[in-house]
């Protein structure tokens, strides 16, 4: 049998293929990651810590995390509605709209950024309408609110995240909704449950793991967004300067230790939320099963 087993193994490509895969990853992914170590150890830890806790860095971290969380939460709700609509309804152009959901994933950040500026920026019709001199803005000021600006400031960051993270939520929730058994909803309805009860007791428990995973993916994507954020937010320190932009500015200023330290925090932030949401949904799935 030994010859047979050897041939079966050769079918699968054997060790040269595996060596190629590891060498490629080593050269193009692991080597750059290793290169992040020297800048962090070259200077004493207290100085590195100082750069991480610099007021502007902390403000950028808070802004990034809160914008990604708010944007992710809004998209989790609206994205799930959209996923449900795309699964349950049959209407003209449904396939086109379904394909449109993926566009933010494929469309370059700069392109999306200038498009959002042209459409909702201060010079646009919508921007003027909502801005300090427009109808909506004036009414906002009258009741004591700041005029709404979809570009520039925190609202712009959230808005950028809404665009960028939509496909991640929809594509995570959509297959789970497609697999739902409608008989369970029908049974609940025939037993007299209200639409809200059906949603709360029948649908939500089944799609909750997917929703949480979708939020995790959206957060990780949103916190890393550069292209749309840099164009739309105005990049004002303490107000709208997010972490990826701050990393870039530190790099431009030749502060490699600061850039690397903030980059490490950003990567850990994205990975932590990804792992936590993934672990929670796995635990949830296992507990239900």
């Amino acid at each position: 049998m030994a010859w047979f087993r050897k041939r079966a193994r050769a079918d699968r490509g054997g060790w040269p293929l595996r060596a190629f895969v590891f060498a490629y990853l080593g050269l193009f992914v692991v080597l750059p990651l290793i290169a992040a170590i020297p800048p962090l150890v070259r200077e004493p830890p207290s100085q590195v810590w100082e750069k991480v806790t610099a007021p502007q860095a902390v403000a950028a971290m808070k802004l990034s995390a809160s914008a990604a969380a708010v944007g992710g939460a809004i998209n989790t709700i609206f994205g799930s509605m959209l996923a449900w609509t795309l699964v349950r309804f049959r209407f003209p152009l449904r396939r086109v709209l379904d394909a449109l959901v993926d566009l933010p994933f494929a469309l370059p950040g700069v392109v999306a950024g200038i498009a959002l500026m042209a459409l909702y920026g201060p010079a646009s019709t919508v921007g003027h309408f909502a801005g300090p001199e427009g109808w909506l803005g004036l009414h906002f000021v009258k009741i004591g609110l700041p005029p709404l600006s979809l570009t520039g400031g925190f609202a712009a960051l959230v808005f950028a995240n809404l665009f960028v993270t939509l496909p991640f939520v929809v594509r995570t929730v959509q297959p789970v909704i497609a697999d739902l058994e409608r008989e369970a909803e029908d049974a609940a309805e025939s037993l007299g449950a209200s639409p809200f009860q059906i949603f709360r007791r029948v649908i939500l428990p089944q799609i909750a793991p997917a929703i949480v995973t979708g939020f995790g993916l959206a957060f990780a994507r949103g916190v890393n967004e550069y292209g749309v954020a840099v164009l739309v937010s105005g990049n004002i320190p303490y107000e709208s300067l997010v972490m990826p932009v701050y990393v870039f500015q530190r790099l431009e200023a030749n502060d490699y230790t600061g850039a690397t330290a903030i980059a490490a925090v950003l990567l850990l932030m994205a990975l932590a939320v990804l792992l936590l949401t993934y672990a929670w949904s796995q635990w949830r799935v296992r507990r239900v099963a």
Partner: protein
Amino acid sequence: MSRKPLPNSGRRRFRLLPILIGLFAVTYLIVIVGLPVGAIFYNAFAEGREAFMDALRDDETQHALKLTVMVCLAVVPLNAIFGLAAAWVLARHRFMGRSALAALVNLPLALAPTIAGLLIVLVYSPSLGLLRWPINTANDWLHAHPDWQQRLHFDDVQIVFAFPGLFLATLLVTVPLVALEVLPSLEQLDPTEAQAARTLGATGWQTFWRVTLPAIRWSVLYGVVLCTAKAAGEFGAVSGVSGRLIGETNTLTLHIERSYAEWENTKAFASATLLTALSVGTLIVNLLLTRGHAKRSAS
């Protein structure tokens, strides 16, 4: 006791709430995604067709386009070959460290693009990079031997602020794309066909080219198209390593940002239509792909 008609699964009662949710969701999608795409084309042609064509014929635009095409030509084939190999190894091999490999393949997706640019600078910068010693040694040697410089048509090794840096940064960001598209279809593939080919005497390569690759060709195609779109549209990673020398290291995305910042709207949006067309192309491939899947599972 109220008598409600039993809902039957064929025809459902007309209900207002779901319709409202549906209308709202579709409006949301159009406001967030649909209108911005329309705005790109609208602004590109705002000054007329002639201005649009002039913006595309502009020297800077032409150079940026060529540079982006060259980066794609260098990055995509490499990542396609790697993607096939990595998906194959992940689907078929069982070995220690397999989950570490899976995590490593996925990692670039969690990396902010500006971090990718920073990392390339940290490896290849001649002043402080991890590999500064070999780079500087090679350059010293080349500068000491002008005859070799001429013979090799090569003045010095430049990576950061030059084409290799753009290539490496784009590659790092797009490493997982083909692999992650191919992996699911390779895992679903029924191995009996390949086994049959083997028992009929085909070699491993023949089996791969004639049996396995045709079966997964659509996901490979989609992965390649997606990788091309992402490589062409890469912005954060290349802005860190490019230095933005106009006519030298200004890629299409950097050109768009610069034109927009300099109030040359038509130039910015005309260049943006090229990248938008590419990403709409990936959507069309995806649409055809899922339709193909639906047909296959229906038959």
